[in-house]
């Protein structure tokens, strides 16, 4: 019911170095403000009331999209969902990430919200995360003590929880080039309306052994059906070295559904996981053959 923010001290560093100095001083009492699409509503509703707010959106170092055949894709943490979704290189080589970013929120949220902010919120239903999981992204994290690289499947530790500390910020998302002869897609259903939270999200990447005509391997990530988005490893195992015939796809879909732990509408979400895994794999397999 409250609409006014509690008072706080405000910082607006222009460099990563300044930002981490401030965070080093205030740690968990500070909150990092990027696009603000989640933080500001939470503060307005007084779900959180940080003493210090560190606005990092003026840091021009973190707004890059770089690509090289060797090093892969490097996305600055402050790149908006809209910029990712409309980047020609990402649309060409990382199409599922573009598609996932284009699902986030509304057009306004996509222009304000940043990829770094999105992953640091770490909500179980956030659309970027399954895509980053199957792309095996890693996060570059910086603090006054230096930098470290965290693989995506170690980054998320629970609902709205990550492996970074209050002294650190994510500066870059690093995504290796997908394996050759691979295809990937993200599919989802929403809770009720077109513009709505994702009820179930499925990202999948299929690698093909063209000589043998079988699937070399698969990565399948599920969103909104557990405490955090996760890789469905058992389902992935079934695919390795196989042709994706309908019986096998059914088995994969069922295995994936069994790996989920939905909190609400559990039966329906599980059923939907099976259906979405199936339709995603069918779609990808048809592209490969």
């Amino acid at each position, binding site marked *: *019911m*409250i*609409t*006014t923010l509690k008072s706080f001290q405000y910082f607006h560093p222009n460099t990563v170095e300044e930002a981490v100095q401030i965070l080093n001083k205030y740690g968990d009492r500070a909150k990092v403000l990027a696009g603000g699409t989640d933080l500001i509503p939470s503060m307005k509703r007084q779900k959180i009331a940080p003493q210090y707010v560190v606005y990092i959106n003026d840091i021009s170092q973190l707004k890059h999209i770089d690509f090289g055949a060797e090093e892969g894709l490097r996305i600055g943490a402050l790149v908006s969902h809209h910029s990712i979704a409309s980047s020609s290189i990402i649309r060409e080589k990382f199409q599922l990430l573009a598609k996932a970013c284009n699902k986030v929120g509304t057009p306004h949220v996509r222009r304000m919200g940043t990829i770094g902010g999105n992953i640091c919120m770490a909500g179980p239903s956030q659309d970027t995360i399954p895509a980053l999981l199957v792309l095996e992204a890693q996060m570059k994290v910086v603090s006054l003590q230096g930098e470290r690289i965290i693989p995506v499947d170690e980054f998320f530790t629970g609902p709205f929880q990550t492996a970074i500390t209050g002294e650190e910020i994510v500066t870059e998302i690093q995504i290796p080039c997908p394996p050759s002869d691979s295809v990937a897609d993200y599919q989802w*259903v929403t*809770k*009720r*309306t*077109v*513009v*709505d*939270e994702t009820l179930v999200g499925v990202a999948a990447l299929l690698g093909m052994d063209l000589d043998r005509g079988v699937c070399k391997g698969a990565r399948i990530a599920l969103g909104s059906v557990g405490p955090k988005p996760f890789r469905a490893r058992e389902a992935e195992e079934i695919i390795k070295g196989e042709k994706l015939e309908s019986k096998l796809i059914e088995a994969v879909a069922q295995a994936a559904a069994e790996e989920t732990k939905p909190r609400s*509408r559990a*039966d*329906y979400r599980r*059923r*939907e996981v099976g*259906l979405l895994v199936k339709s995603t794999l069918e779609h990808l397999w048809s592209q490969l053959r």
Partner: protein
Amino acid sequence: MERELSVVGKRLPRIDAPAKVTGEAKYTVDIKLPGMLFGKVLRSPYAHAMILKIDKSKAEKLPGVEAVITSEDIPVKLFNSGLTDLLVPEEIAKNDPRDQYVLSNKARFVGDAIAAVAARDRKVAEAALDLIEVEYKALPAVFDVVEAMKPGAPKIHDFANGNIARHISFPGAIGDIEKGFQEADVMIEETFNTTKQLHCPLEPSACIASFDSIGRLTVWSPTQLLYLARHKIADIFDIPEGKIRWITPFVGGSFGNALTLRAEPICIALARKTRKPVKLEYSSEEQFIATQSRQPFTIAVKMGVKNDGAITALQGKLTANSGAYYSLSGTTTNVCMAMFATLYRCPNVSVEADIVYTNIPISGGYRGYGNPQAMWALEQVVDVAARRVGMDPVEFRLKNYRRAGDPGWTASLPIESCALEECIKLGMDKIGWREKMGGTKEGVKRRGIGMAIQRHVSGTQPMQMTHSNIMIKMNVDGSADLMVSGCEMGQGMFGVLAQIAAEELGLQIGKIHVVNGDTDETMFDDGQHASRTTYVIGNAIIETARQVKQQLLERASKILATRVDDMYVRDGQIYVRGDLENKISVEDITRRATYNFEGQGRNIAGKCSYVPKGNPPPYSAVFAEVEVDINNGATKLLKIVFAHDIGRAINPTNVEGQLEGGVMHGIGYALTEEYMVNGNNGVVESDSFTNYKIPSTLDMPNVEVIIVEQPTPSGPFGAKSVGECGLNAVAPAIANAIYDATGARVRDLRITPEKILEELSANIL
């Protein structure tokens, strides 16, 4: 011979559009007064609790706080926050409980107003809320009507045994229901549940109240019922009514939400205490929990039908969830019962209703009032009945519907006109009914079509007192000021009334200036409710315009040396019939009338009090086409065809807009909107647009509106109403289409994929 119309029937642009597009249009929240304080309301965190003690001393000491009020500071007068009880005599009105204080002395839902603050700025007001110390004693709470009626359930109001606020037997019951059941070849028994839908206007409730130095109160607030709001406030606060000026600026959408008092009583109480102007704006969350919503019903239906499709008996047993207070529950229930009982011909009809208190937010009236609830049940039962006797659902309806000459709501006012058959015929062609109905269904994605009909009202005659009082004054430039106590809440009232005035006066549309919504400037009107504006106010304007025209013609007759009866006014010119050269402009007449140097000076003007003579019901036929995925139960809406019996479209674009908007509300009611209250503690979980989902344009199918124009005798230029009609029958049309596609009959709103799957698996087993 039908007269040729020059303004009415034209697709004119909205006359309020420039002000709204540029931001010039003023809404209540835009108004700022010197020295104005800001109000905030402290709301109960408990669904049901005694208030043992309130310590406001700390809040009062906070610098900037000017007043902290509780139930002890306000008039000890119970009232009903709904306003339409003022439209029936006291001996009827008193049947509806008066159960609310301005601030509550016992918490009855999470969000009940317990205390309020006025402070020099918003932040201070909010900070002061945190300093008010309330000692509650939590009581057991009940959220479900069945639980609430059980012996030993928590008692929410002392007078209401079993939490039953009121039992109503439909006064229009006829025949012998048991005999009707015995005569039937086929019996259908079904139970339906509807949901607590929210109006979701763009503008949350807001009010500004200011007493001047001689104690006269001015109120700015977005209400649909200006004069009734003033009347009730005068009574609650014991202020002579002439000492209250009530102004309604532009209203940012309402859909029935502003048929009750909302922020006004608390705001006025704060202004009275501080003797300073106070603004109280509800936040979006307060709009969700502390105003009112569509009343949820359980409707148990029993219908008897002959093999030839004749209905022999119709019985309804209704249970309405009133929420914590009564508000508009009585009138909503009455409308629900009447719509349910009188859409079809049937010799034996009985409807009974219990209105039950629970510890959830207040239910009231919402676009369609009780009609969407009634249609959700009835129009599905009719679909079931038609199929049971082997008739096409359309043929079944055509056989049984009440039509022109049949009794409407009351036997005293027969149905004046009805173009339902034409609506059905055109709608069937457009949706492809004959080709698509009942085709074989195979595969994962199954298509189906369904339809439903509705009949609504054009005002409240003869159920309630109703009259409109209009003034038209001519300016010397030949333009007219039209003074009317209505509100423009997005429905397009300004344009429609201006078109009617322009047509009857013989002026161009740009010559009409609408002055509205200010009790100092405009006369009594019962307000914007029951889809009455075009029909009732439109007719009042015609009568007033005729007075004005008579004065213009009398003056022109002297100048043109022609009899009044031989002249007419068109496009601002007064012509002599059969002689186009012999004319004089209206401007010439009005100028010479006012600046009259022959001692005949007069401001040409008219006023009238108009009591509607009829209540011609508009009918609609809604057709829906859906595609249901039987794997996941998801429904995709492919198309809605909406054919509406308007009588005459004063502005066809506006009619289409009203209907498309109504359809959107209907789609939300059917498929997306769900008001979630936590079953353990009564906390409203749907308190924002994040978790209460209304459809967006992306959720809308192709909507085709068909306007059927068969002018109704008593309507202004033949017009009937449209405002509420768009949503009444949309949900059952969709449900019937889902049944046609899959065989799944969903009886409880909202239609979810899970409910469809459950029905499907039950059918397979």
